[in-house]
């Protein structure tokens, strides 16, 4: 892998931290298990590192923004996650932040495009 690709990869990981928080909170409006989340995100044309998602879900759960329960009814045990009321409030606040960041970035790019 080239140095530039490595650099972009490392910066993308940094950017993903915040993005994945919002994405996970948005996805979990419907109960989902980890692997299904990975597949769903991949289906949307985005790649998420599998080993990044689970620690993130753990942090969200620790803070009370999502809740989890094991489903043992199928052949394979699956841990389902769902958003909580606090998680919904956080998601709304984070989406506002993200929209504002997006607006600032778009306007800045537009401005500098004419320079």
């Amino acid at each position: 892998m080239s140095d530039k690709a490595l650099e972009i990869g490392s910066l993308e990981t940094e950017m993903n931290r915040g993005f994945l928080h919002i994405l996970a909170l948005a996805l979990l409006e419907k109960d989902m298990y980890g692997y299904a989340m990975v597949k769903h995100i991949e289906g949307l044309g985005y790649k998420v590192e599998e080993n990044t998602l689970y620690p993130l879900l753990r942090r969200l759960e620790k803070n009370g923004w999502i809740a989890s329960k094991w489903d043992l009814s199928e052949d394979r045990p699956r841990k389902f996650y769902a958003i909580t009321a606090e998680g919904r409030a956080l998601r709304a606040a984070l989406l506002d932040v993200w929209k504002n960041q997006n607006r600032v970035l778009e306007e800045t790019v537009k401005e500098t495009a004419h320079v």
Partner: protein
Amino acid sequence: MSDKLEAYLEEISHFLSGRAERQEILSEIRSHIMEKAAEGPGEFGDAAVDRAIAAFGPARRVAERYLEDRPIIAPAYRRYLFRYTSFLFAIHAALTVLAVVFKKDFVIFPFLFMPKLGVIEALMYLPPAFLTDLGVVALVLYFITQSGKDIKLPWPKFAVDLDEVKPPKKGFWPSRIATAVGAIVMLAITDLALYLFARHGSIFFVNLDWHDPRPLFTPAAGRYVSLVVIAMFAASTMALLVKLITRSRWVDVASNAVSLALIGLLLRQPLHGLFAPEIAGRFSPRFATWIGYTILVTLLFIALMTTIELIKGIVVISRRKLAAKAR
């Protein structure tokens, strides 16, 4: 179930040792890998599990993702580790020199016990002392980090700053030429000293008469002090010659360590009976005592400066390594 999956989970478990939710984490990972292996291309089997494990990443990296929120020492405090260790070790080294010179025990209960030491014992004592200082500082920073409190620690400055971490600005040839000239001069001085020592048994004289030099010190003291000083010249020459090949800071560190050991040997020479009788006879006892203390203070000052340079060298090397890792 795949033995490889169990081995993989076992390895992650090892890295997560001490975390209460370890079993839960392992169950999550097991569930994910089994799920992925079942849905992947081809038949469900060991090969599919192996592919799922490879996609999930190396065990250590996986465990680190869970440990990111709990560093042993917070990143902001990491630079304090070597600064505080250097500071503590400088005190330790200075007390060691005092223990050697004054041949006394030092006790600062309950923090320090410095037994009476000889030069060789002191040299054996310093490396473990450095490791102890490093351990103590690391432990304090660990507790501060784990407390989660935002504690502002003082930042002692003693001439080791970021600028010194940068490579020297001098060009290749000017610095090499200066080093080569220094090496030639030191080689000439060392050779002259060796010649004088071989011919007269000392290199310290009170007159410049080539054929009839009058020694400054008694024969025994002159021999001992001359040998140590010649060894110092030789060490400096060697360091300069090595510097022609490499610009590594380790050369300075090694050179300073050798100098410190040799200064320690010089400090072992008793001041009483140092000067040759015809020289000592010219001094009043009070003046002789004053000269003795002047020599002692000068040697201690040189030892202190060498110790500071030695510690600076070690700190700069450590910080360069940390800076290279961070890039």
